[in-house]
């Protein structure tokens, strides 16, 4: 059980894909101008991570070390293409917005990194959990960054929710500030860099405060052996 809670903590916080490993920044920075875009890409990435981790873990004893990287690449590319087709079929409007970033999930280093570093060495349930929580950790950052940028840029939250949840979800949009003029910088790419930088800084501050509070309950060597 503690194994799973460690996987959970690693994925969501300690070695968070976006905050700590700083992987997959291209789609992260590009699509996070609204919460819904972030959520869409996050869920697609999570699904990719779960499927590729599970598949890699299933075949881990079959694949010889010298061909493991090409095999992982084939698995990941197939999974992403399948997800892209499925999204085009069932979430067509969202696909049109995220379209060019879905194939880019292939190049998201976090996926092959998890296949190589975790799934190829662990059993299927653990690999599933690792994919799920690494993906959710990434999604969490995408949503947070999306919320900050959308809130500052448009003065709303959850705009264009109908792209993901259908017409009924149009009313989900929350207007934070009515008659807002908009803050262009937040929506443009530089806003993504500022936002991510501030979020990473905030995480580091929290980590430092925690470490300062209870310096004895963070046994670093234990974490090292478990990894």
């Amino acid at each position, binding site marked *: 059980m503690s194994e799973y809670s460690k996987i959970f903590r690693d994925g969501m916080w300690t070695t968070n894909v976006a905050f700590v490993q700083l992987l997959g920044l291209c789609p992260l920075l590009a699509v996070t101008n609204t919460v819904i875009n972030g959520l869409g890409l996050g869920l697609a990435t999570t699904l990719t991570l779960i499927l590729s981790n599970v598949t890699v873990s299933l075949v881990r004893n079959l694949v*010889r070390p010298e061909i493991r990287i090409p*095999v992982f690449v*084939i698995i990941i*590319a197939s999974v992403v293409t*399948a997800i892209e*087709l499925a999204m*085009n079929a069932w979430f*067509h409007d969202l696909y049109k917005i995220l379209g060019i970033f879905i194939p880019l999930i292939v190049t998201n280093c976090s996926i092959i990194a998890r296949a190589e570093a975790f799934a190829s060495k662990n059993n299927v349930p653990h690999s599933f959990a690792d994919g799920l929580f690494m993906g959710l950790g990434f999604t969490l950052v995408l949503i947070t960054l999306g919320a900050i940028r959308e809130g500052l840029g448009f003065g709303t939250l959850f705009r264009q929710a109908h792209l993901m949840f259908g017409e009924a979800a149009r009313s989900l949009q929350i207007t934070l500030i009515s008659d807002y003029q908009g803050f262009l910088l937040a929506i443009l790419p530089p806003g993504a860099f500022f936002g991510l930088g501030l979020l990473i800084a905030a995480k580091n501050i929290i980590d430092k405060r925690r470490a300062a509070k209870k310096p004895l309950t963070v046994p670093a060597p234990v974490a090292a052996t478990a990894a």
Partner: protein
Amino acid sequence: MHTLARNMLISAVLLGLFAIGGSGMVAWIFANTKQQIAANERATVLRNLHQLVPPETHDNDLFNDVLEIIDPQLDNSKEPVKVWRARRQGKPVAVIINSIAPDGYSGSIKLLVAIRYDGTLAGVRVVQHRETPGLGDGVDLERSNWILQFNNKSLGNPVTDKWRVKRDGGEFDQMTGATITPRAVIKAVRNTLGYFATHRDKLFATAIGETKP
């Protein structure tokens, strides 16, 4: 040496099997989503077209009654422009021309220009653009109502000289912070109207799929 060759062979076969398995899965999913994707694309196009030419005004298969035109008057040199034709009981009702404004602030702007048979505009929509968010993207109906001022305008209303933004001495509202984008859109709409005026009856008479009316 023998075992090395054997190992290499096993690796190659394994890799091949994974490649076959992976592409097999993708092919299977592609075959199963193909129809849905085509239907989605059709629905998206039709939804855009029907915003401008409502479904009750025509009775033909609007989506398939289409020409792909290349004409200097439309300012497109390479990419053909689609022209959908709406008819009612065989009589022409309107065309929707998928015009391109090549001189947007960042790349070309793709428009749908709907023109009634009498030459008045049923409406204009921007379907694809890369204009600056918050400035030039006001041409998008999701952002502002700027594009609606074209409704019911025609070549004579206002006269050709007045087909400009107010700052340039024309009749159309400008957009705060953006000059290039509205200029490009107005020019493209005016050119499209001009093209329609000279080719109107040929456009409706041409068989589906032709590139020159």
